[in-house]
């Protein structure tokens, strides 16, 4: 318990430091002004969400190959955490877009593929809630999770392959892209803070699922006797 409080405190401090850096260390962007500071929450949340979905994908693959419950537990934990980060992306994006574009939302390739990604993982969790048999639930959701992850390369490539209203990439975006060095450091530090938060949430959620899985196993054994 003490260890958990300590870890949670470190994560809160990191998030606080990242927010401080976003408001007071990063320079004001010349064209957009203050509103651009949403970038330091929006982009790291997006990267962390995709990282979490990648963990879910690996866990889903591992479950299909090995059929060990711990991979199912990790899969659902990572899907839920990834969904939380993607929700933050879908909420902060429009708050930035309204003053900059004059509209809250547009159905361009990046926004649409991200929204579809969010829907796919909502469907993943709904599918799990509808299946009672633990083995069937784990296998079907793992297969669905592998399918859902196919949208991740589309989200990544959408601003590289097609013309979009969404801004072009500033990291790994080619010769014309890039960020002012202080902005890049604040962005990377914010991502580290988000990864720490993801690890904390993932650990908590995994423990919950492991406990639930063990209770289910005991109940099945008790029913079989």
């Amino acid at each position, binding site marked *: 318990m003490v260890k958990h409080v300590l870890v949670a405190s470190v994560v809160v401090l990191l*998030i606080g430091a990242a*927010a401080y850096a976003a*408001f007071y260390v990063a320079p004001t962007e010349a064209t957009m*002004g*203050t*509103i651009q*500071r*949403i970038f330091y*929450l*929006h982009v790291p*949340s997006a990267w962390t969400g995709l990282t979490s979905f990648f963990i879910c994908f690996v866990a889903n693959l591992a479950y299909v190959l090995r059929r060990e419950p711990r991979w199912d537990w990790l899969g659902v934990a990572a899907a*839920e*955490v990834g969904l*939380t980060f993607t*929700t*933050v992306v879908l*909420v*902060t994006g429009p*708050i*930035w877009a*309204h*003053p900059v574009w004059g509209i809250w939302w547009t159905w361009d390739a990046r926004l649409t593929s991200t929204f579809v990604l969010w829907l796919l993982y909502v469907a993943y969790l709904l599918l799990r809630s509808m299946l009672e048999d633990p083995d069937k639930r784990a296998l079907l959701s793992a297969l669905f999770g592998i399918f859902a992850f196919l949208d991740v390369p589309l989200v990544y490539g959408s601003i590289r392959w097609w013309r979009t209203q969404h801004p072009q990439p500033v990291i790994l975006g080619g010769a014309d892209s890039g960020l002012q060095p202080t902005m890049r450091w604040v962005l990377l530090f914010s991502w580290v803070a988000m990864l720490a*938060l993801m690890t904390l*949430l993932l650990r*908590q*959620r995994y*423990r*919950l699922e492991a*406990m*639930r899985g063990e*209770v289910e196993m*005991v109940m099945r054994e008790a029913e079989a006797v």
Partner: protein
Amino acid sequence: MKNLDSVLAAYLAGWAIFFAYYISVARRTAALRKDVERLKESLTRGK
């Protein structure tokens, strides 16, 4: 500073979503722990 209210709204909304999720996991864990305790008690009584 123009649009500072929008920036603050975005940060508050983001943190609120993370906090709500953290609380939801903590509450679900506490509820499951209670169920496990109840299950243990009923098994002990059944012996």
